[in-house]
């Protein structure tokens, strides 16, 4: 009986906390508007995107087929770990939204220089991390 009480109490706390932390903010990743865009980088800027968050690395991408321009939200710290240049090709999978007549993509996955980088999971939750600059090197085994 006592055991059941503990389990119920703990489960209640976990569920309550998950509900509070799961609240959404501002614009958010919508899997229903997901699209793949392939194009050429036209500009790279750092820009505030969300309240109380570090500025984001934004890549302005010209779609190859339509010549349409997209503002691609990458992540804050990728500004340091990724060296994008104007003229380079980039393929983005992400959620599209429009704001002030501009087409924006919240990037979930990018393909760049023959490598794939996962920026969010399939539900759109961010995969970038604090300490990415210092942590990444020691992961995935030794280099000689």
């Amino acid at each position, binding site marked *: 009986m006592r055991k059941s009480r503990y389990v119920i109490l703990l489960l209640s706390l*976990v569920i309550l906390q998950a509900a509070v932390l799961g609240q959404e903010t501002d614009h958010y990743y919508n899997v229903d508007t997901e699209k793949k865009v392939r194009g050429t980088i036209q500009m790279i800027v750092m820009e505030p995107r969300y309240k109380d*968050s570090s500025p984001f690395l934004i890549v302005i991408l010209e779609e190859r087929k339509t010549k349409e321009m997209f503002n691609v939200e990458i992540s804050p*710290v990728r500004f340091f770990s990724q060296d994008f240049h104007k003229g380079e090709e980039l393929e983005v999978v992400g959620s599209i939204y429009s704001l002030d007549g501009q087409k924006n993509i919240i990037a979930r996955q990018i393909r760049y220089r023959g490598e794939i980088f996962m920026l969010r999971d399939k539900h759109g939750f*961010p995969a970038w991390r604090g*300490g990415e*600059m210092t942590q990444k090197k020691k*992961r995935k085994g030794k280099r000689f």
Partner: protein
Amino acid sequence: MRRLVVYFSAFLVVNAALIANTFSLSFYQNMTDNVFQNRYSERDQLSSLNFYLDKDFSKVSIFTEGNYAYLYDNPGLSYYFHDAGLDYLHALNEKTAFYFSVVGQGAFYRSDYSDFNYLSLHFLGAFKTYLSQTSILKSNYAFEYKGYSYSLFDFISHFLDVSFDTYFQTKTTIKAEVSWGYKYYLHPDASQEAVIEEGQGYRGGRDSYIYIPRTVYEGKAIQIFSANGLIAQGLGGKIGLSLSGMKQWTLSGENPFTSVEEFYVVENPSYDSFSWEGYQVSSQLTILVPWNIELKMGYTRSEKEFPGIESMDLEGNPLGVTRQDTRDVFEARVEKDFSSFSLFLSYFYVNNRSNDPFFDWQGNFFSAGLEWNVFFGGKK
């Protein structure tokens, strides 16, 4: 009562994971036929379990990571490693930003290698600016303090590098980088106590010299300077090729030990980027094959001289020459990212030729890894 403790512990883990923005678990399995990287090849397997948590607070992120590694044939070398830190990113304008991080680390080895236990503090300051949309200037400064159980290894270091890269419409990237480093041993001559372990154990034929400070040693600091160059070429959207070269000079100082050793996966305090001078050239081919699988293949050749380290014969008699190693490394790596986990396999073949016969060795190194990520919090 015990059950209550178990429930409470489970709750703490779940709770910590929920509070975090990111919670990841990873498992790596490594196999080698030369764990101590010397002529007396010794097989071992290493299993490593890693967890990672992070949480954003406005513009500051805090993160913590734990890693337990177990060696099957040399369990005395097993260790637990933990770090925790915070970082902050500040954009000066839309083309320039600063990044700062402070990380505390601790490594705890089983009793056989408890001299390697350390606590450390790292600070990183990074700067990046776009001089134009195709040219980038970057600079990093790193400070590190490490205090070991065996105080002979204690040091502080400073590292500064500046790099410039530019991209051409031919899909070619050229990068140049210069680095300067300064490592100060806090007490390299504090102890002349020689702890010699007879070589019937893990090292094969020769005694262990790693714990012996040199009796004649001038100065406490090592200063290095290096120049790096890289040229990378994109071939279509799925193939990348890069060639890089590095030359490093020891400007002052030398190694304070009588021997320098590297172990596979396990950090050895006698060896790091300050231990050597010489050059290194590398080439790497990256291919994105069907099903979005990344394939990387590379070759690296290095020639390193270890200032202050005298080569010895297999009985431990000095040969009167400074140790020099020439190393060829072939590597292949396959990686596949899924939405919430990633898998990788890697293989290295290393051929190390040295004028110290103890370090004349070859080795095969296999790794396989599974990384599972769970994300929490808002979707922003």
